[in-house]
């Protein structure tokens, strides 16, 4: 079709005067790229109005769910690939390596001189554990969330955690700005939940949590360890209008065993 006929057809369409066969012709021209949708004024106006309409905002729970899924995937990756990767711990790695080498050299030398191999190995183990603890506490202060995640994962390498480490884990659970780190801290504390003081701290933690995911994770843990004293804290969350329904349902499911 000649250009002037095309322009005529578009003009006719914009005046609302086209018949069905002319609309079909127009469609053919659109498909061939000879007419752009922007030339069809009424439709363009409608399209602009459509683009101006905003969907209502999603809730924060959507973000929480996504980041929990991402954290789980990262933990899965880390647990399958985890090894004592010294170079990736930046400034601390060389100091730690040097300290461990010194310790090993020192105690190897000492045991040769004194012949007390068993107690020296035990002492070495304790010193390495102390170094890990120092490293963990240092990493927890770092700005990067992945460094703080590494700090929390270090505790899983410790046979026993000291009070200092437990306190640091609770501090992280209650106030770390990153949801993934808080969830990881709860996972790290879970093995020690038989301890009476740890349980008390966990119960106190419930009231300090804003994130529905952490609340649900705490409820699941309390259900598993059968901690009835946690019920009153969860009742406050269940009565709160701001708690999403899905979260209330999950919490009720978990604490059902406690009632």
């Amino acid at each position: 079709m000649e250009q002037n006929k095309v322009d005529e057809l578009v003009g006719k369409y914009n005046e609302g005067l086209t018949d069905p066969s002319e609309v079909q012709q127009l469609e053919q021209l659109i498909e061939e790229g000879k007419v752009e949708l922007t030339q069809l004024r009424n439709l363009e106006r409608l399209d602009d109005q459509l683009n101006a309409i905003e969907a209502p905002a999603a809730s924060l729970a959507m973000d929480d769910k996504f980041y929990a899924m991402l954290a789980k995937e990262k933990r899965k990756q880390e647990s399958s690939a985890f090894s004592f990767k010294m170079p990736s711990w930046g400034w601390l790695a060389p100091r730690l390596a040097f300290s461990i080498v010194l310790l090993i050299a020192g105690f190897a030398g000492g045991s040769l001189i004194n012949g007390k191999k068993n107690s020296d190995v035990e002492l070495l183990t304790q010193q390495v554990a102390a170094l890990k603890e120092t490293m963990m506490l240092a990493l927890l202060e770092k700005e990067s969330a992945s460094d703080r995640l590494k700090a929390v994962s270090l505790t899983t390498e410790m046979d026993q955690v000291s009070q200092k480490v437990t306190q640091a884990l609770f501090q992280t659970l209650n106030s770390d700005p990153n949801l993934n780190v808080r969830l990881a801290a709860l996972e790290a504390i879970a093995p020690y939940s038989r301890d009476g003081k740890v349980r008390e701290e966990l119960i106190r933690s419930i009231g300090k949590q804003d994130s529905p995911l952490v609340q649900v994770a705490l409820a699941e843990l309390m259900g598993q360890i059968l901690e009835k004293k946690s019920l009153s804290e969860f009742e406050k969350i269940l009565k709160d209008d701001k708690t999403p329904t899905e979260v209330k349902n999950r919490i009720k499911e978990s604490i059902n065993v406690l009632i």
Partner: protein
Amino acid sequence: MIAVRDGDVGRLGLLFERYKRPLYGFFYGMNRSQELSEDLVQNTFFRILKYRHLFRGEGDFRTWMFHIARNVSHDHFRKDKLKWKESIDDWQDRLGHDDNKEGEMQLNEKNAMLSIAMDRLPSDKREVLLMSKYQEKKYKEIGEIIGCSEGAVKVKVFRALQELKVIFHQLEKTM
């Protein structure tokens, strides 16, 4: 996305922050439910994570993401066998029970009617208009998502807008 595919899974967070709004908007435009739309966003990113190894690195991440989103949407509605309500009375009733009624009422009247008109469009036409909106009218990319030529997408958009106009005028007369 290439970094995510190659192991730096944490970087998916950046993509989530960049695309969560258009993705949520697309689903919300299709089903008008906040809760369902949030679930479908989660499902989409779950699949992106699960099938990250399939991202070839050619072309736009947004196009790939909407391709997955479309499948997530279709899978959900196929499973739930939801039927779209067409009568105006049903939609007025639905507005009455919609959690976002207050949000709707805050829009000016024309926008509210346009939203209702969109809801009354057949789902395939609604989908192509939402794709056009959230893919920023990149018709070639939309063609890749829905499996047709760029020209055919423009015709689909044309037909969808035509029908939307008719429904909108009907609503203006009735309300």
